[in-house]
């Protein structure tokens, strides 16, 4: 039944957009794409791991697309996506080897450090990365077909939504699986996990790779929808935004990041216009409110979680 309701929700997102103004479709595309990176942050948070550098993988995805177009002459979007999965997985598998040993503030800030190293590289190696100018991402082909210009936005939107929905389903399976539960158990009690015969390090490592791949795909999708990528995609404020949206949506369900992400994109669109200097302060205050009054995020506020059966605990209640 969960699946049926999820598909109904998805149908809504597929049917309505042709009747919406273009800028809304654009914001929605961005929200869905970024929700993948947020989902990565959420998965890690379920294991008690807070990262301040997840934009690293978002940037890896975006620049994989940029390099694929610029240096490999690849224009096929699907190939770019596969490449991004590979680069995302490779990067997270390598860094994960080091990071799976750390918890708490060490984990968070080491991730931050790595993402800032990437930021510095993207900024400084002008010849390859385009420096502050970034790289342009021309419209990709889709299975060999070039989308017609008048329906370009909508095409990218549909690709993004369908792909994200698929990955949400993967994440949903993951959270309900033994590995997903082991990750939650790690957050609760590492000693017991080891005494139970499972490897804490392995659970964290696997989840870290999954989280990295999700963000990397998100980076490609967001890159194509904006059409232009800049080093700021790896900056700490981007990572901070993912953490913020993760908390805003809540960590109780894999659908929560979508809700959080959409709300965030629209609110920012307005807030930024009216009061650019107090934007961070607003974020900070909202975060405080969430921490003290709404630990389950927006998702818990709707109360839909349990009624709709998305909450992961359904089968024991």
């Amino acid at each position, binding site marked *: 039944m969960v699946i049926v309701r999820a598909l109904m929700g998805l149908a809504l997102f597929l049917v309505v957009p042709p009747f919406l103004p273009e800028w809304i479709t654009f914001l929605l595309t961005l929200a869905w794409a970024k929700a993948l990176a947020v989902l990565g942050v959420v998965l890690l948070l379920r294991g008690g791991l807070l990262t301040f550098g997840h934009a690293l993988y978002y940037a890896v995805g975006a620049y994989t697309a940029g390099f694929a177009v610029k240096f490999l002459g690849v224009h096929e979007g699907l190939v770019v996506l596969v490449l991004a999965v590979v680069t995302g997985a490779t990067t997270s598998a390598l860094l994960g080897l080091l990071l799976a040993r750390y918890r708490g503030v060490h984990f968070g800030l080491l991730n931050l450090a790595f993402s800032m190293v990437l930021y510095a590289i993207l900024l400084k190696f002008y010849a390859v990365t385009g420096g502050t100018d970034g790289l342009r991402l021309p419209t990709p082909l889709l299975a060999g077909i070039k989308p017609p210009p008048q329906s370009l936005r909508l095409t990218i939107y549909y690709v993004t939504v369908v792909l994200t929905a698929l990955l949400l389903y993967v994440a949903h*399976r*993951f959270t309900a699986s033994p*590995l*997903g*539960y082991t990750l939650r158990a790690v957050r609760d*009690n590492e000693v*017991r996990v080891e005494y139970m015969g499972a490897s804490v390090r392995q659970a964290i490592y696997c989840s870290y790779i999954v989280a990295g791949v999700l963000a990397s795909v998100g980076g490609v999708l967001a890159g194509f929808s904006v059409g232009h990528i800049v080093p700021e995609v790896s900056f700490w404020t981007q990572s901070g935004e993912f953490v913020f949206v993760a908390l805003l949506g809540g960590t109780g369900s894999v659908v929560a990041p979508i809700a959080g992400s959409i709300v965030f994109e629209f609110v920012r669109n307005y807030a930024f216009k009216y009061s650019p200097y107090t934007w961070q302060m607003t974020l900070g205050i909202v975060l405080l409110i969430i921490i003290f009054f709404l630990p389950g995020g927006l998702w818990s506020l709707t109360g839909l979680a349990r009624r709709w059966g998305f909450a992961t605990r359904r089968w*024991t209640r």
Partner: protein
Amino acid sequence: MGLRDATMDPVSAVLETVSLTKFFGMVRAAEDLSLRFQEGELVGIVGPNGSGKTTLLNVITGYVKPDRGRIRYQGRDITGLPPRAVADLGIARSFQMPQLYLSLTVLENLVLALAIRAGRAREFWAPLARVDRLDDARRILEQFGLEEHASHDAGQLPEGARKLLDVALSFARRPRILLMDEPTSGVSARDKSTVMDTLVPVLKGTGVTTIFVEHDMEVVQRYAERVLAFDEGKVVAAGSPDAVLADPAVRRALLGRA
């Protein structure tokens, strides 16, 4: 029989420690402990606070590295193995302070234990909540009298139920050896015998070798088949419950300090 332990037939000892020694700075937590445990027996360990009972369990399960000495299990040297490897070999333990997954429900705690025990900890696609696994878990909850708590978060359980769940989690691994650290501490005096009456038949029924640390003399007297009395990291008396608990040195150590 206890004091002659070291000369017993080595083949029949399922678990054996040789000259185990562990100091925490100046504190002697274990000194030259050579112990043997037979297949299927139910051994009680008594001793005042800080006498090294928990440390012995920590060292056997690889949580704490001994300064000196070896641990042999089924003739195999397991000294230095990490807790995970020791657990995989069939030694499980419960804890003085229950170690549970507090944000998961009681049933989830147990189902996860079963999945890990079956070597499925790395599965990321099949759901944890398989029907057969749920059935197994419910059966164990029944055995331990926890079925009414099945859907409660472990963090909300009363102290006694936490203790039981902690033991149940270890028991779910179907170990050859079960080490229990004060299974009845924090449980009201009235419920102590209930807990033990629940545990002991289950354990005896499966033939698991059980070693339990216990403060309550009556509990030890009633349930242990053999008793080791610890003081300052050493065994000061060993043998039948009646003999050990009647030993004046033991009485002094236990009553004088605990």
